[in-house]
């Protein structure tokens, strides 16, 4: 199938162009995490040694072995989700700037005419960019995050072995790489679903802007909001500002998908039997069953449609 090959080539192309943001950024972030973890351990040992009580680190680590397996699971769940929520935030920023440049950069460097000299329709081009942002970059981030978690678990295993403790008991049995990967993957998809209207707006800004897509994407809504506020002030109707909360709501959910269950105003479902990860996961999934997601998706489709139209009929130079 030629269309499948075309999509494959277009998506690969995005990764070539954005190797730094899509692949290097999460890897560098992982290296920072690893260096910090090892650095923290070494610092603790050195400081303890300097203060003369050189077995305090061993004592602390020994103490942890007395924790119950439920406690240990909770600690690992928290550790994994803390780390993956940082990944999710970085992913969000990476996609923000990717989409903002997606239909603008090639016009800026004039390579748009090269892309248009190939037998690929403008709709295919724009779709390939949005699905790269929706699925492929998140999958890479999940993959790198899993690799990072695995490396950290191996490092902690080595540390525990140095101190003569059981890594099976403290790491491999309470921590579940599978659960960590699953919650992060659901996190990226929750993020994506909430962010759809934002992604749509960004790709539209990218297509319509002649000079500064960033300013367009930020100032047009800001000016609109300000005018609305002003009109309300002038007419003494300080009534309805809830509509401004909505876009911010989408942005907030997308920034912190793990919190989307409670952010949504639903009461946080708590089940003491569930693990922390399952709890967060179920709350995330419950946030998705909302009409707001559907409105966001509709808005996104309209914006993508306009972006294609502009690319097709106006953006030829």
């Amino acid at each position, binding site marked *: 199938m030629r269309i499948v090959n075309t999509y494959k080539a*277009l998506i*690969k192309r995005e990764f070539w162009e954005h190797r730094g943001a899509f692949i290097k950024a999460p890897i560098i972030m992982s290296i920072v995490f690893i260096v910090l973890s090892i650095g923290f351990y070494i610092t603790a040992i050195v400081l303890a040694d300097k203060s003369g009580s050189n077995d305090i680190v061993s004592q602390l680590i020994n103490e942890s072995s007395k924790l119950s397996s439920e406690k240990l699971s909770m600690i690992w769940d928290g550790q994994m989700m803390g780390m993956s929520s940082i990944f999710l935030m970085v992913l969000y920023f990476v996609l923000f700037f990717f989409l903002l440049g997606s239909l603008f950069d090639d016009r800026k460097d*004039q*390579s748009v*005419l*090269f892309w248009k*000299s190939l*037998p690929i*329709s403008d709709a295919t081009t724009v779709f390939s960019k949005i699905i790269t942002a929706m699925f492929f970059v998140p999958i890479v981030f999940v993959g790198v995050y899993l690799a990072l978690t695995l490396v950290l678990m191996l490092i902690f295993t080595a540390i525990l072995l140095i101190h003569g403790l059981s890594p099976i008991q403290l790491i491999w049995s309470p921590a579940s790489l599978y659960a960590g990967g699953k919650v992060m993957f659901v996190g990226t998809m929750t993020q994506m679903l909430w962010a759809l209207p934002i992604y749509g707006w960004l790709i539209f800004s990218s297509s319509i802007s002649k000079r500064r897509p960033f300013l367009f994407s930020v100032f047009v809504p800001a000016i609109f909001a300000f005018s609305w506020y002003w009109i309300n002030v002038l007419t003494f109707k300080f009534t309805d500002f809830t509509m401004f909360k909505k876009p911010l709501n989408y942005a907030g959910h997308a920034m912190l998908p793990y919190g989307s269950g409670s952010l949504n105003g639903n009461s946080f479902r708590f089940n003491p039997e569930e693990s922390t990860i399952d709890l967060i996961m179920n709350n995330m999934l419950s946030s998705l069953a909302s009409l707001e997601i559907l409105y966001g998706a509709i808005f996104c489709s309209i914006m993508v449609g306009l972006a294609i139209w502009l690319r097709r009929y106006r953006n*030829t130079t």
Partner: protein
Amino acid sequence: MTNIISTKNLSKSYGKFKALDDINLTIGKGKIVGLIGPNGAGKTTLLKAMLGLTAYDGDLEVMGINPFKERAKLMEDICFIADVAVLPKWIKVNEVLDFVEETHPKFSRSKAEAFLKKTKLGLKQKVKSMSKGMVVQLHLAIVMSIEAKLLVLDEPTLGLDIIYRKDFYDNLLNDYFDHERTIIITTHQVEEIEHILTDLLFIKEGKIVLDSSMDELTEEYFEVMVPSENYEDAMSFKPLQSRKVFGKHVMLFKHVNRGELEALGDVQRPGVADLFVAMLKEEEAA
């Protein structure tokens, strides 16, 4: 289907400005057409219309297809090089080959690699690190490896030094052109391409002012090197243009019997640039 391109009352306006004004022309298969005109005459607009990059009024068919409606389909049979800076800066040679291979059904990678072997370009090299000439070499290698029916070149050699320019047209003529294909070229350096052209289109203020084959031109227009003693005689034939070079008058004539002109001095085919300038002046006088 022998006509690759045919237009009927093709027009395009930007506000009040008419970029293309009622253009009627046909371009047949196997031609190398030079599209010549001053800046802002509508050359690029005409090419863009042919490539489906701009909307227009009137009829335009490129290989039987309406280019604006079916640009993606048309691009299987058309290649174009719009300007030297057109390849993306971040892409590597092997990446661009991969990409075109996967998206263009008529691209031959082995051909492209063979062309590239003749250059200094490495497969891992980024466009960013290439000189303008090298970028054009790469682009030409890609374009020449596509089995296209029509090649459109808009100022392909702009900003290149003389060696690259010469190579460019040599490659085009020797390795690419085969009388089954059609090439349309616009350039300001007319002298460099006139020997390869089969047809000539002059465009001015959105109108075609000359649409002729090079053979017809040779039959209609003559350039004569008239020595001073024949000056008065020559003037009686009303030259379109006259200029003095090394003590001789170089005069341009239209529709004058060749035999009569040979009596005045050496007769040769006029240069396209001279012809173009003369025709513009003639237009203005009329």
